[in-house]
């Protein structure tokens, strides 16, 4: 029993279980003192907030800061010994590699959950007519599918950034290790709150939470708001940390234009996450207040404006799309040269295109609102800015193509996923301009076309690259390799399943299938396409299941990874696997360009560390 309590996460959950009733009781008690009948909604909201704080206190996330406030000595993060083995992943750790893996685990749990939600309502939609879901549950699942997977993606990019970025730039850790731990751990109770919205009746607005629909209806929406609000904190603090790390923690002699290209993408993403996330937090917070306190921000019945909500919401939620995909695109640029044995074509252009996407990404949000009823003239400037995104995105595609041209491509599992990423993101990219020109968008907005287009950008820009990254860096984390054979099964099932889903959705969307409907008229003739999409959806699920099996099997009994197994020029592969606790013994020395594959005798960095002896034997 005592052993269980020594796991920080257990104490955290207990903290949340204690905090929630305290918050609930506080509000309920005040209501009772005033002689009012119980109004449960504010009690649940305060309970949820207290629960998150209770988790963090129980976990010990604030302990060091508390001692600092009292003027007491605390250990430097570097001096702290994590518990050995897999146990360290279940507790508070300040090591960026542990936190990276923790982010990864949370991301995968949320991926499985969000994917399961999709399978449930996908099954409902396999045929016309209503099968087994109530309207309210259908709507709740659609909304949670969206938001749970957004949280999963945020955790996933944080996992890659946290684990890989300090290694790539030769740093010993992130700039602010304690803040780093807090940014991860706040997302754990936040995810619990988010999913528990189902227990309070769910919500019927989808992930967009448009007012005034969100102001009526079940109170599950409040936990949805609170959960997202705290996930937002995770994102903002993590981004702050990454910017400081990339700007200040590079190994001496590594110029910005000489750092691995992934660092540029993560920098661009972090700038966006740091500055835009507040807006969705604000939009949700205002709706929460409108429900609790009757402040009429958005409901026209009280003098509010529902369009205002959409502006606030999309000012984050459009850049969010780039927050999700830029790290993935960075992974493509980072790994492509390794697997085609050729320098990255146009390094500076690719680096600048990430910043270009980040900049233009801030100026396009209202293209989600072409049919929403905002000022009509505004649609034209937003059409121009939206189509401009095609320019830096095109630079990336052309540069990748030129990188592959005349390369000596090695078709290992990560390379399969890179090719999948490029072709799926291509589909997502080229189907975008149709939603950018206003008059065509008036037809396709809020239809399944948008569903297909959006999922293609997410799969191409995040899902496929993140799988490539996991297959690539998994041996660095565990010292073992994942199965290439299972990896290729995983790839083909995912690729074919996804392409069928996406093309099917776009096809019926153009013909008149609306988004987010629990049922459709059989007369539309969409029964067969929906059945095919559903089967393809299950293929995607089987693929991800194979991936989980591969992950588990690889960690337990995978072939030991020997030395620089991808023959990469990157510093992390010149050090032993699994990575030593404080990364590099001596500072990494930069002696060349990062991607000069094919330039004989050149090196990117020198790492003064005994590489596993098998490094030479690999030849």
């Amino acid at each position: 029993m005592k052993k269980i309590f020594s796991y920080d996460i257990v104490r955290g959950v207990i903290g949340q279980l204690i905090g929630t009733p305290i918050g609930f009781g506080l509000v309920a008690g005040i209501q009772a003192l005033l002689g009012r009948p119980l109004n449960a909604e504010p009690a649940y909201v305060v309970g949820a907030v207290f629960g998150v704080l209770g988790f963090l206190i129980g976990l010990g996330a604030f302990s060091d800061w508390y001692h600092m406030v009292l003027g007491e000595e605390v250990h430097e993060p570097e001096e702290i010994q994590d518990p050995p083995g897999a146990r360290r992943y279940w507790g508070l750790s300040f090591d960026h590699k542990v936190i990276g893996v923790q982010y990864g685990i949370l991301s995968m749990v949320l991926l499985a959950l969000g994917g399961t939600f999709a399978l449930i309502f996908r099954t409902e939609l396999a045929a016309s007519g209503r099968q087994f879901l109530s309207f309210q549950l259908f709507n709740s699942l659609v909304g949670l599918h969206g938001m749970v997977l957004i949280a999963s993606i945020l955790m996933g990019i944080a996992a890659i950034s946290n684990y890989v970025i300090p290694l790539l730039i030769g740093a010993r850790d992130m700039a602010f290790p304690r803040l780093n731990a807090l940014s991860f751990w706040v997302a754990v109770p936040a995810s619990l709150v988010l999913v528990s919205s189902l227990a309070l009746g769910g919500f019927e607005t989808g992930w967009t939470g448009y007012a005034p629909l969100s102001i009526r209806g079940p109170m599950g929406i409040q936990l949805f708001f609170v959960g997202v609000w705290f996930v937002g904190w995770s994102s903002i603090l993590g981004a702050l940390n990454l910017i400081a790390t990339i700007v200040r923690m590079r190994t001496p002699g590594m110029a910005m234009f000489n750092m691995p290209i992934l660092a540029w993408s993560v920098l661009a993403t972090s700038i966006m996450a740091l500055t835009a996330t507040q807006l969705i937090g604000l939009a949700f917070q205002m709706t929460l207040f409108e429900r609790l306190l009757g402040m009429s921000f958005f409901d026209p019945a009280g003098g509010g404006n529902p369009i205002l909500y959409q502006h606030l919401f999309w000012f984050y939620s459009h850049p969010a799309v780039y927050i999700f995909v830029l790290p993935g695109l960075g992974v493509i640029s980072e790994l492509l040269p390794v697997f085609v044995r050729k320098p990255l074509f146009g390094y500076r252009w690719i680096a600048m295109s990430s910043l270009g996407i980040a900049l233009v990404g801030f100026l396009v949000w209202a293209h989600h609102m072409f049919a929403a009823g905002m000022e009509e003239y505004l649609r034209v400037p937003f059409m121009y800015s939206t189509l401009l995104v095609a320019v830096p995105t095109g630079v990336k595609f052309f540069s990748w193509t030129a990188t592959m041209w005349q390369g000596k491509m090695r078709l290992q599992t990560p390379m399969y996923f890179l090719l999948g990423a490029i072709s799926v993101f291509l589909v997502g990219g080229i189907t975008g301009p149709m939603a950018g020109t206003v008059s065509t968008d008036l037809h396709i907005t809020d239809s399944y076309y948008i569903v297909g287009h959006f999922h293609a950008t997410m799969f191409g820009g995040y899902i496929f690259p993140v799988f490539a990254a996991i297959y690539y860096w998994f041996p660095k984390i565990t010292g073992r390799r994942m199965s290439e054979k299972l990896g290729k099964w995983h790839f083909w099932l995912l690729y074919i399943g996804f392409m069928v889903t996406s093309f099917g959705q776009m096809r019926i969307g153009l013909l008149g299938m609306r988004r987010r409907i629990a049922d459709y008229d059989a007369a539309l003739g969409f029964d067969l396409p929906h059945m095919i999409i559903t089967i393809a959806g299950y293929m995607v699920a089987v693929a991800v299941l194979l991936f989980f099996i591969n992950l588990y099997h690889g960690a337990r009994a995978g072939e030991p990874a020997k030395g620089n197994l991808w023959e990469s020029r990157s510093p992390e592969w010149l050090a032993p696997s699994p990575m030593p606790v404080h990364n590099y013994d001596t500072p990494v020395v930069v002696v060349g360009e990062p991607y000069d594959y094919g330039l004989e005798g050149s090196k990117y960095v020198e790492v003064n560390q005994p590489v596993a002896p098998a490094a030479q034997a690999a030849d």
Partner: protein
Amino acid sequence: MSDAEIEPRKKVLIASANPLFAKGLQKVYGEKWGAESVDFNLAGSMEETLARLESWQPELVIVDYDDRTIHREAFLSHFIAGDRPMQVMLVSLQASGEVVVYDRRTLTPAQAEDWMGVPARPAHNPAKLKSRSGNMKHFLIAGTLVIVSTALISLLFFAVGLLPDQASTQAVTIDTLFNAHFVIIAFLFSLITVFVVYSAVVFRSKPGEKQEGAYFTGNTRLEVIWTVIPLVTVLGFSYWGAQNLAEIREEAAQPLNVRVVGYQWAWLFEYPDYGVTSTTLYLPVNKQALLSLTSRDVIHSFWVPEFRVKQDVLPGENLVKQLRVTPNKVGNYEVMCAELCGGAHAYMNSPVQVVSQAEFETWLSEQVNAVEADPAARGQKWAEINCTSCHTLDGASLVGPTWKGLYGSQVELEDGSTVTVDDAYLLESILDPNKLIHKGYPPNVMPATYGDLLTDEQIQDIIAFIQTVD
């Protein structure tokens, strides 16, 4: 360079960060010139080299031109500034062993140009030249494939037919833009896919092969080209898009005014010029309809796929939005709500009938003249407009309880008690639906506003109608 130029005991400085390079050259030239006639000195960095130039005053400097830590401009200015006799020999091992010699006294501006331009990285070696003609062949094959693939995919798109029927002049305009998008999609898809697949198939390594790819790191001219061409294209497309938008918003002189009211979960169409209200949207063909859209509760969205255009329907008196549609094809269509509006969003559809002008007039006059004497018949009409999207007449349970056999039955309430459905119960449930909660149907679903929306007479008509449903 002849050996005679090197007088006995000449001083030779070798500048390279690579010790192997320096040692190797020392050995080669030491044997060539005779070790006793030459003094060698090795410098491993730029600072060291410049310092030795001053302190040691060599006659010949051998520079490793593959070493990028050497700052050429600084070196050149230093070289031409002095007046002591000095020669510089540039040796590149990587660029096929190129050797160039410059003399301080005879250096011409053209030579200085050359010096600055000598590639630090190998660029023009014979292997590269050979691969260039091979490259041309690959480009031609891939380029042809792109053209073929673009044509095939475009053909496929138009053969399959990606869009629903065109039933409005706006749809005709919008579809020209759609078709341009389809061709661009076919082209861009082919362009990238062909080159990527070609690279994967033709250039890939055989299993176990350890060869590296061709070495080139970028090409600024290419980057500028593939930045500027897309930039011009998207600006052009945006301009066209703006024209297209203006065209579909063109106002006809005397449009038919229709007020469209959306509410959870049905549509209502009012013709204010004729005092007619309908649950079907009747429109005369070839006459522009000016729809003024408003909602009673949350946001809905008006979409008839065959008309192409869509407009969200907002609550709030100051947020009435307009949409212009000119149907050009007689037929039956459906308007559906495209913005998630909760509950029975999926069923928020109403029929749209585009009819000839004559039929439209006939329908209008029928509507205007139809005054029912029977309260239940009137009630049925009010119910169709207000109630039956949630309360079925056939026994099915939708959002609210069905009306079939409701009147006179015993209803179990949420608090466990039962009540007999009579006029008083129905009236109360219409005016304040949150008071007596029918078991299984949660509160706060039915709007509590029907007392304001309907006249007392209309409510009595509806109750009379409910009595007849069994």
